[in-house]
């Protein structure tokens, strides 16, 4: 009788212990499942963000490409094409029986062809992404400003802090934003002076493009949702956001425009 009781209690202990062990094992699996599930969700989210970033980058590259083609087309039409057409016109109207006029026209044509070659070289240099990557952002801006100086603008480039190299893709996007701001000054601002400031701190890069033109159309500066109404400004705003930065524009009619870019250097 006693033996049976003892066997029964032992049986209960063993079954209870086994159950306790099983519950413990079940908990281990449960926590594993929970943890892995969370990890998987986090991973999927990260992948989605990465793919969205890639998509945005691709879109921006396409936009930049389109913008570049437009710039080439304008440059060829407005400058190089004009210069060559004029040279052709001068050569077509050469009069061999008037030696003085002949020499003058040939010299003019030579100068026009030289100007076209110079313009082509400048265009090629400012569009070459490899050279921008190799020379760095500040030097690329400096060369860009040189072109503007040749066109009659008064330009200044001011840098402060230790110039730091960023990822080529990001530097290129930043440069294109600055380039587009400068092109906008030519097209719309009627400005005489352009001042670009690049301020490097330990964590940020502040770039400012300033002109003394007539100021931007207030309608163009209006926001629609969290972006600009104007397509050009919206592109610049989105590109800055894509590299983790901010884009702001301040303009007072008659008092010029200031474009400010702030890029956290760590994010780059």
């Amino acid at each position, binding site marked *: 009788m006693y033996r049976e009781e003892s066997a029964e209690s032992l*049986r209960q202990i*063993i079954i209870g212990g086994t159950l306790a062990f*099983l519950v413990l094992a079940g908990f281990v*699996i449960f926590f*594993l*499942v929970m943890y*892995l599930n969370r990890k*998987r969700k986090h*991973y999927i989210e990260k992948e989605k963000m990465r793919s969205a970033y890639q998509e945005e980058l691709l879109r921006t590259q396409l936009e930049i490409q389109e913008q570049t083609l437009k710039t080439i087309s304008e440059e060829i039409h407005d400058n190089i094409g004009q210069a060559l057409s004029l040279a052709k016109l001068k050569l077509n109207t050469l009069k061999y029986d008037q030696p003085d006029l002949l020499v003058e026209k040939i010299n003019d044509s030579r100068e026009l062809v030289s100007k076209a070659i110079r313009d082509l070289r400048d265009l090629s240099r400012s569009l070459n992404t490899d050279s921008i990557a190799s020379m760095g952002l500040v030097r690329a801006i400096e060369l860009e400003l040189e072109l503007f100086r040749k066109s009659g603008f008064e330009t200044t480039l001011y840098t402060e802090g230790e110039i730091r190299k960023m990822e080529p893709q990001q530097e290129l996007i930043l440069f294109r934003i600055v380039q587009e701001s400068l092109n906008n000054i030519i097209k719309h601002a009627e400005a005489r002076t352009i001042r670009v400031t690049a301020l490097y701190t330990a964590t940020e890069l502040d770039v400012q493009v300033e002109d003394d033109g007539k100021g931007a159309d207030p309608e163009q500066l209006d926001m629609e949702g969290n972006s600009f109404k104007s397509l050009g400004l919206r592109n610049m705003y989105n590109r800055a956001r894509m590299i983790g930065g901010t884009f702001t524009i301040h303009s007072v009619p008659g008092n010029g425009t200031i474009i400010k870019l702030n890029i956290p250097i760590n994010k780059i």
Partner: protein
Amino acid sequence: MFPLSIHTYFEIAALLAAIIFWPKLKLTKLRWLLPFLLFMLSVEMAGRYMRTVQHVSNAWLYNISVPIEFLFYGFIFYHHYTRKSFMLIAEYFLILFAIFSVGNILFIQGFYKFNTNILKLGSFFMIILSCLYFTELLTKEEPVNFLKEPMFWLTAGVFLFNTGEFFYSLFSDYLIKNHLDRPRKIFSEINNKLIWVLYTCIVISILCTGKNRQRA
């Protein structure tokens, strides 16, 4: 002999699942499940026949099948690990456990008496090998949907089964020595219930194999 115990139906269900999903299963590392399940069911049926019809001890049969079962799971783990160190542990287990099992049968506990040492050591190592697989899952860089991962379910089954069995096996020698579990009632009760858990997990594992392959 008939009707069969409930846990046998779980084994039959697992075997049927393996047969039905064989076209998909054969393309995976779990293809060895089919012969293994066939072997386990045969052992179960033979053991039952010996016990209920012939009324003879079937301990020797389980002394053969239990080490094979542990070695099979060890082999499956070995083939699913990606870390070299874990593979090495599984490899050592396979070799040492095989040697130990033969030694235990021949020199320590004998062939006709149920080998509790094999059960203790085997269960312990199964818990370790399962935990190693879980560790691999935890440290994987690209997490997969493990609930659809056949090996996750198989490991969960093996882990739960052996955790339960290990606790019993710790007391098994005392119980047998003092004739407290003479018809091995406690063992059967625990073991049979754990078989439900293990084979349910195996069935899910096989079903996942089918689903995964269909998606691929």
